[in-house]
């Protein structure tokens, strides 16, 4: 929800599979945002009603989707020309870890021998602004915002903003700036759950949702 508020009118946006796809639900249609799906669809709409799925129309996660007016299809080479060629205004990806200087790790966990990168590395390299939407800590309570990523990297210095359940953090010249805290949370409490040092913004405010 907070991520959606950050997306400007008329922007071209790619939402990664998983949590980021939920962002679309909070972007009002009047804002004219156009969603790109890496599997070759520009102009995806809301999920269809059950029983009203359109044959062969899915998003990058394989979920049935719909089209908005003016949508188009393309092959994967052209889809990634959009991604890699710097045509996306905003991309939202999930994260396993984000480092102090804005590195992102989100394709392979430590406990598995392989991992799936999908389009994430290209998106990280090509998006004009990259937002990471993730939980602030793991299920065991370990920080996901770290000094240095220990998981294999998706991209180096690619993250612009991090949105968690506890905070909104901006990456600025290799430093993390705490811009917003969730209602009821203090900067100190958020820092306690963050391994990397946070600069507290002079304009620190509570998230409005």
């Amino acid at each position, binding site marked *: 929800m907070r991520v959606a508020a950050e997306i400007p009118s008329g922007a071209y946006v790619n939402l990664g599979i998983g949590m980021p796809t939920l962002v679309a639900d909070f972007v009002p249609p009047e804002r004219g945002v156009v969603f790109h799906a890496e599997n*070759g669809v520009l102009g995806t709409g809301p999920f269809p009603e059950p029983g009203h799925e359109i*044959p062969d129309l*899915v998003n*990058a996660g394989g979920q049935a989707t719909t089209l908005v007016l003016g949508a188009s299809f393309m*092959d994967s*080479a052209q889809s*990634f020309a959009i991604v890699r060629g710097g045509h996306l205004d905003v991309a939202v990806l999930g994260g396993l870890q984000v480092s102090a200087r804005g590195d992102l790790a989100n394709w392979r966990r430590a406990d598995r021998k392989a991992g799936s990168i999908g389009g994430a590395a*290209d998106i990280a390299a090509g998006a004009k602004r990259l937002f990471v939407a993730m939980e602030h800590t793991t299920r065991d309570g370990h920080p996901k915002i770290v000094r240095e990523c220990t998981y294999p*990297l998706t991209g180096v210095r690619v993250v612009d903003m991090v949105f968690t359940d506890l905070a909104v953090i901006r990456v600025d010249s290799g430093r993390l700036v705490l811009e917003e805290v969730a209602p009821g949370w203090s900067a100190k409490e958020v820092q306690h759950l963050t391994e990397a040092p946070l600069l507290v913004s002079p304009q620190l405010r509570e998230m409005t949702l």
Partner: protein
Amino acid sequence: MSADAAAAVADIPDGATIMIGGFGGVGVPHALIRALNERALKNLTIIANGTGARQGRPSSVEAHMVAKAIVSFPISPSPRPDDPFEEGYESGGIALEIVPQGTLAERIRAGGAGITAFYTPTGVGTPFAEGKELREIDGRLCLLEHALRADFALIRAFRADAMGNLVYRNAARNFNPMMATAARVTIAEVGEVVEAGALDPEAIVTPGIFVDRVVVVGGGNGR
């Protein structure tokens, strides 16, 4: 035009490199894959976006036929103990080359386009940079990536005409058009064939020059 899927894949040998289209369970040449699995081949190299079975529907080459997979999405986000490919990757029985999806798409496109290699910023500073030449071009660090070509491409299209021109449907396009250009033999599974001239020249996505065999499998585009 091939009589059937079995005839279309009859000459694929052990050790072949095969590109297979599809993404998110659509645009997958199910009939060709089934026919390939019937061949009980060995030591194949598969180039595809992913190799996993999706939603209970077998849309994958039999793992025991595969020696190497070049893919962007080898395993699902949550562990699937019943996935023979995941087991193969874990044990080392299947060699795995994970390629960022955009790089994979472009390597295949380059393979069909006669572009031997190209530089991309994707993957710089990550494990995907290992073993690759790193160069700064116009102030940006890039990796050298090489074209991919295959012996055979198994692709899925919506409709063909008698000249082998192809059109696709919705999100089923994905890797199919590039793969069609990058293999020595391109085999297209389609829902129907129309007469030459029935497809608008403006609308043809894969010109027939790239297509060698067409197999008609009725009933739409899968799923």
